[in-house]
């Protein structure tokens, strides 16, 4: 008796759980218009009466997320700089994402605006809120921000389940890309310098998703002691830290960066040896759901460079 009671209670617990899940699932299906409420990255509570139908996305990274969540059809506005995926270009352009044109946004009659968390956007946030338009402020600086933003957008657009599965796929792919790197990580990590700007030299620090991509690809950013996202550094500090490879972030990958032509840059060994990789700004220029792809791409190219085939 007592022996069979325990499994039965387990059955009951399991049954309750299944029923609860079913109930949740049924509620999501039965009432897609239910109010959704989330907290955004400025700790504002965002509540929409119904899932967002007309979305304006004011950062390239959030535009990518909207498409990745299968909500591309609902996008009615994007910034001039939103260049991925290609179908984003068919969405009306409302201008800049930092210091946005509130009138142009309002003209699209959105019910949700995804605003980048820049201090320059404080006024726009208030103006949009005053117009009664739902605003979600998103940070989008690190991989963790991609996960959180996916869930925020998913919740506000009634696609919570899609957001969950996107996050799981994102984490699995990132882990796989890093694991592949672990298998070949017997050698010391490649030390890289990330070139954002030449004069004065600007590089990225530990607070950037690019440092995360570099680390996940099995390399090390020589300026990971900079805590912020980026900083102006001395050219002599770059020469002194002697990176193995220079990564140049560029929106135009067809044009060779020609670092050796910059005055003084030939003091850097990687420049003299032409160990320079150009990173496509469309893939590497923002933290996006394609970060795992960037990690794989970088790891492969660094490996090819090591073996002398790139």
């Amino acid at each position: 008796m007592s022996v069979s009671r325990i499994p039965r209670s387990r059955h009951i617990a399991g049954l309750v759980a299944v029923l609860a899940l079913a109930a949740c699932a049924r509620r999501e299906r039965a009432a897609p218009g239910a109010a959704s409420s989330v907290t955004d990255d400025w700790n504002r509570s965002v509540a929409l009466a119904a899932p967002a139908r007309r979305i304006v996305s004011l950062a390239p990274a959030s535009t990518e997320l909207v498409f990745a969540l299968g909500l591309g059809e609902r996008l009615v506005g994007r910034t001039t700089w939103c260049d991925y995926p290609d179908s984003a270009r068919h969405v009306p352009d409302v201008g800049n994402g930092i210091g946005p044109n509130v009138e142009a946004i309002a003209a699209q009659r959105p019910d949700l605006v995804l605003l980048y968390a820049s201090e320059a956007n404080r006024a726009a946030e208030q103006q949009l809120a005053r117009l009664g338009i739902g605003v979600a402020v998103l940070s989008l600086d690190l991989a963790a921000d991609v996960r959180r933003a996916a869930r925020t957008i998913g919740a506000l657009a009634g696609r919570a389940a899609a957001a969950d599965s996107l996050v799981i796929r994102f984490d699995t792919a990132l882990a796989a890309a890093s694991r592949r790197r672990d298998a070949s990580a017997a050698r010391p990590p490649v030390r890289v310098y990330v070139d954002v700007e030449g004069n004065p030299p600007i590089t990225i620090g530990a607070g950037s998703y690019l440092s995360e991509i570099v680390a996940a690809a099995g390399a090390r950013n020589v300026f990971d002691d900079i805590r912020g996202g980026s900083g102006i550094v001395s050219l002599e500090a770059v020469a002194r830290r002697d990176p193995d490879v220079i990564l140049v972030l560029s929106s135009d990958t067809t044009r060779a960066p020609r670092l050796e032509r910059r005055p003084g840059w030939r003091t850097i060994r990687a420049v003299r040896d032409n160990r320079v990789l150009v990173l496509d700004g469309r893939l590497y220029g923002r933290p996006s759901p394609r970060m795992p792809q960037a990690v794989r791409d970088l790891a492969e190219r660094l490996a090819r460079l090591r073996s002398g085939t790139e």
Partner: protein
Amino acid sequence: MNRLARGPFVAALVAAWLVALALGLLAGGARLAPGAVVNALGGGGDDATRAIVWSLRVPRVALGMLVGGVLAVTGAALQALVRNPLADPYLLGLSGGASLGAVVAIALGLVSPWAVPLAAFAASLLAIAVVYRLGRAAGGLDPHVLLLAGVVVGAFAGAIVSGLLAVGESHQTRSAMLWLMGGLGGVGWPGVAVLAVYSVPALALLFVEARALDLLALGEESAQHLGVDVRRTRRRVYLAASLLTAAAVAAAGIIGFVGLAVPHAVRMLRGQEHRALLPSVFVLGGAFLVLADAGARSAFAPLELPVGVVTAIVGVPLFAVLLRRTMAAR
């Protein structure tokens, strides 16, 4: 404040220059040991250190000495020319012209490292020509009209720059803003050589006119009676100063405060006479900028501050102390 006698003043100048030279060479983002730097200067040590010292640090110090000196001398000359203590190398529309050239080059996507300085230089020349044309009244260059012309040309160029920055792509805007902030790291030895060759004749011309500048300070008519060709002096000083500033801006961007404050500091310490003033101002301006740059490189190493930030943060309090002591002694 009592003015310094010639001997102590020259000694102080030399000391300031040597301190600037030493700190400029020893301080920096790469944190090299002083012994290693000295060794590398003498041609010893490892290749990497020698490259850092000779290809990066030495040209940077040389450029600082030149740019600081040029800005300070042009400031002194222009203050005498327009007889206005607020005059500085940028007052006559030059910074506006240079900024416009730089921003247009960046907006057009000209990526060669020399495109931006050349465009800034060309646009400065254009601004100089326009201001000169506007400032040429019936009796030759009129200082008041010249000032006004400089300010309006600067404002016009500034408006176009703001417009271009507002519609530009964010990375272009960033490049342009950074260039405008100014810095000594961007041109290396070729930049130093070009600026040196270019500056010598213009500096010499200003020095030749030093006596006339003293007399101009007495007033235009007195100067005329004492045999100064006022029209010619004005034209020469204006053109030499403008062309010098254009070259300095092309090499190092817009670095404020040196051209305004250093001449006043030297006048307070030593007096008005331009034959002594101009060389002293050249040395002190160079030393000041090199010291400021050493601070900019090492304060938050490996991060670097824009040198113009340091010239103002360090220079303004120093200048304020000097000003108060001078006023108190009066």
